[in-house]
């Protein structure tokens, strides 16, 4: 496979960009609530570090902000059902602009299989994690 092949896509967030095939992941079941959107490109913009973006190729106006769960909780441990040596994990972040509050869905992480370039959003069996975990905030201290 030619790993340098690029594809031009028009995104709401980043304008028109060229993405390489190696950054495109297939979610065979889509994201929950977006079952028909199967192809996503992974984007990191220096202006929103440490967040990443999961942008739909089918509907490029759809984009999910992601964060490594360990950026939020160093003790995050999704359980034995996920082999963290083999996959890369992210969680979906929701921003409530009116309150300036962010929350992360720790209960349903995004699991990326790097070798196969596939991804899925899996609901963990464990009840340990919340679907809307509020970020620690400096004002809380």
């Amino acid at each position, binding site marked *: 496979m030619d790993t340098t092949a690029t594809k031009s896509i028009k995104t709401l967030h980043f304008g028109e960009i060229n993405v390489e095939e190696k950054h495109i992941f297939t979610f065979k079941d889509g994201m929950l609530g977006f079952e028909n959107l199967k192809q996503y490109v992974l984007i990191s913009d220096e*202006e929103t570090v440490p967040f990443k973006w999961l942008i739909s190729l089918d509907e490029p106006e759809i984009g999910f902000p992601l964060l490594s769960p*360990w950026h939020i909780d160093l003790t995050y441990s999704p359980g034995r059902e996920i082999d963290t040596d083999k996959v890369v994990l992210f969680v979906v972040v929701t921003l409530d602009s009116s309150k300036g509050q962010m929350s992360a869905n720790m209960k349903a992480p995004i699991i990326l299989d790097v070798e196969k370039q596939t991804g899925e959003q899996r609901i963990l069996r464990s009840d340990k994690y919340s679907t809307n975990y509020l970020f620690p905030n*400096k004002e809380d201290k």
Partner: protein
Amino acid sequence: MLVLSRKIGEVVTIGNSVKITVLSFDRGVVRLGIEAPKTIPVHRKEIHDKIVKMNKEASKTEFAALKHALTGGNMIFSEDNNGKNRKSADILFAQIKK
């Protein structure tokens, strides 16, 4: 919708691999025992619906709003220094520089 009546201890099968047993019924609460392969996710519908709602909200996040929230500097991030995502995570992403 298919409607079946079952007594306590009786089972419904779905396909070749899923079995649902009625374990008990008490004060309006039915307890079900569900045997399914790991590849079939089984969850209470409320959890599923909540995640759909969270995803819908997240999918509308504006780049500028996130950037603004970040520049507020109110957020605290761990360093991810136990490095679970250390090796491969960054190279997966197309980098955008302004």
